[in-house]
């Protein structure tokens, strides 16, 4: 494969480069020699049916699964990501489809889970964490007041904003959003859209994963389409139509303006 997969920034170093990534569960190749890349301030939509391998591919980047083969480069340097902690150390933050919140503790505890603020005595500094939580939540969801309640008491939208807040709290450089608007109403979906634009301005690279093209098309700069664990192709959203992308998702057919991947059929 070439180094610039639909590279819009000729010659620039990508923020993330995943090359020839494969992983198998039992005998099933969930991801089969897939490559994607991501540049600063760019939104890449990762599309495909349920089971196409997009979530699995991205979980390799976020450290949830170890890859069988392939390379990951961050800012051009090859890195080893063995667990979620490694990924976070490289500024990779993930908002999982399931949100991955601990339902029985409050918003602040979830925001800082695994990265708690400590007092000089080494104990949890709950007040400081709540203060930070109030700050970041005030930016995302100004109406949020329920800081003392376990997150299971919150609405779907509120839980989503907690998950998003957790991802942006630690100055992420790379953000992975797995079906970020699946559980949201139209108003909240629009809010997430605004947030993505804002984060883009800050130079954060975003992978947006969805099985629904409408969620992604207007927000993404490029799309990468997967089918049966392989990449069908890459395209700039300005150069292809939604119908053409749908053709890639459903049939695996690569339109002329897209760059072919190994999973494309003729």
């Amino acid at each position, binding site marked *: 494969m070439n180094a610039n997969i639909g590279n819009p920034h000729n010659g620039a170093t990508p923020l993330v480069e995943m090359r020839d990534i494969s992983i198998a569960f039992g005998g099933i190749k969930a991801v089969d020699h897939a490559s994607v890349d991501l540049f600063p301030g760019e939104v890449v939509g990762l599309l495909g049916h349920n089971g196409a391998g997009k979530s699995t591919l991205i979980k390799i980047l*976020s450290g*949830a699964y170890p890859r069988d083969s392939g390379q990951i480069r961050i800012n051009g340097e090859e890195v080893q990501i063995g*667990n*979620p*902690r490694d990924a*976070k150390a490289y500024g990779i933050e*993930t908002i*999982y489809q*399931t*949100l*991955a*919140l*601990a*339902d*029985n*503790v409050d918003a602040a*505890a979830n925001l800082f*889970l*695994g*990265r*708690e603020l*400590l007092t000089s005595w*080494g*104990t*949890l500094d709950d*007040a*400081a964490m*709540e*203060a930070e939580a109030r700050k970041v939540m005030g930016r995302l969801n100004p109406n949020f007041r329920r800081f003392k309640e*376990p997150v299971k008491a919150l609405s779907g939208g509120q839980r989503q904003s907690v998950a998003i807040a957790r991802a942006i709290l630690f100055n992420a450089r790379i953000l992975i959003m797995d079906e970020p608007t699946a559980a949201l109403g139209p108003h909240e979906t629009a809010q997430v859209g605004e947030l993505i634009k804002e984060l883009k301005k800050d130079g954060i690279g975003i992978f947006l994963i969805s099985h629904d093209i409408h969620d992604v098309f207007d927000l993404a700069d490029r799309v990468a389409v997967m089918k049966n664990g392989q990449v069908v192709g890459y395209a700039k959203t300005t150069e292809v139509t939604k119908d053409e992308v749908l053709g890639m998702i459903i049939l695996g057919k690569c339109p002329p303006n897209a760059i072919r991947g190994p999973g494309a059929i003729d």
Partner: protein
Amino acid sequence: MTQTQTAVTTQTQGKEGLLTAFLRATEIDARMLGMFGALILIWVGFHEYGAIFNNNGAFLTYRNLWNLSVQTASIAVMATGMVLIIVTRHIDLSVGSVLGVTAMITGAAQVWIFPKVLGLGLGHPMIWILAVIVALVVATAIGAFQGLLVAYLQIPSFIVTLGGMLVWRGAAWWVTRGETISPLDPNFKLIGGGPYGAIGVTASWVVAIVVCVLIILSLIAGRRQRQRFGFPLRPVWAEVFIAVLGSVLVLGAAYIANNYPWPAGIVKEYATSHNIPVPPGGLFIGHGFAIPVLIAGAVLIVMTFIANRTRFGRYVFAIGGNPEAAELAGINTKRMTVMVFALMGTLVGISAIIASARLNSATADLGKVDELYVIAAAVIGGTSLAGGSGTIWGAMLGALVMQSLQSGMVLIGFEAAMQQMVVGGVLVVAVWLDTVYRRRIK
């Protein structure tokens, strides 16, 4: 007519509103209130039953309440660890057997090995110190080993500890091939309580006052902290109420412990050995807090601190709420599992010390069926078997409720078979009530 009705409705609404507002302002858990209510009901109930049917209300006496506190200590200590085990969605059925084998090894060490092999004289202060260390190390190691099997070999904790229950009970027998080790080291024995194993009147007041000061200081520190960040504060009257309530409970416990006098024989023995003249009316020497009760109190404070104020505690609850999320947040859930089981082991070690010291002997049967009382205490105290929720103080209160029921039934002369049936029934009813309560607040 309509007017009066309206008036009545408003009044009741106002009343309900008051109680709710009161609970909210003081941040007192309704469940906590319910448990205290149940405890008082049990205490008064047994006392009155005895007073009416046996002409002797023996429950609410200094003597009984003091004994109750000592009897509760061992189960209460283990229940605090069981909370963390159950919160992380595990179970430990082996605690009774681990207690047994730990007590046997500790007993053998202090009676046979330390005096004979190390050549320490009888009653040498190093003996009890080494014995305590042996107990803690043995029990912690067993806990950690079982935790390793659960975490890294991924054997369900139910099976690991069910096996452990049988293995360690057998091991307890093997230590001496069934022989009972008695008596134990005279200093070690004091850890179990008894007249000499209590700290006396003056020291008890000092302890109680220190605890009261700590309660007040921690309330002030919490308030300052919230002020610093400009968070909403509890009303001042609510803070004062909590401080007063906590202080009254602690001072009341000290008052009760101090008013339970030494038996005349012990007083005589003590007076003779210390050359104190005994007045004709007899000499009053109060027990004060028993050492095992102080240990349980210290465990309550330390375990509450661990559960609420440390990363370890935060991770325990996060794992219980959503193990996958905890893993994705970068928490090493396997290592946490080992640590939780090891901590449970340490607490079993403390209970093994208390239980064998109290009996002044180590037997292979020590701690039999304790696992069920420990689990029951944690569950009655509001620990959810689904994982993710539970409190340390709740488990201790649960242990006190269980022990109150048992010793209450002994006092009013119920047969052992009947006692078992009542305790079992209460466990089921308590969990049912808790389920109803949880559904209500949802």
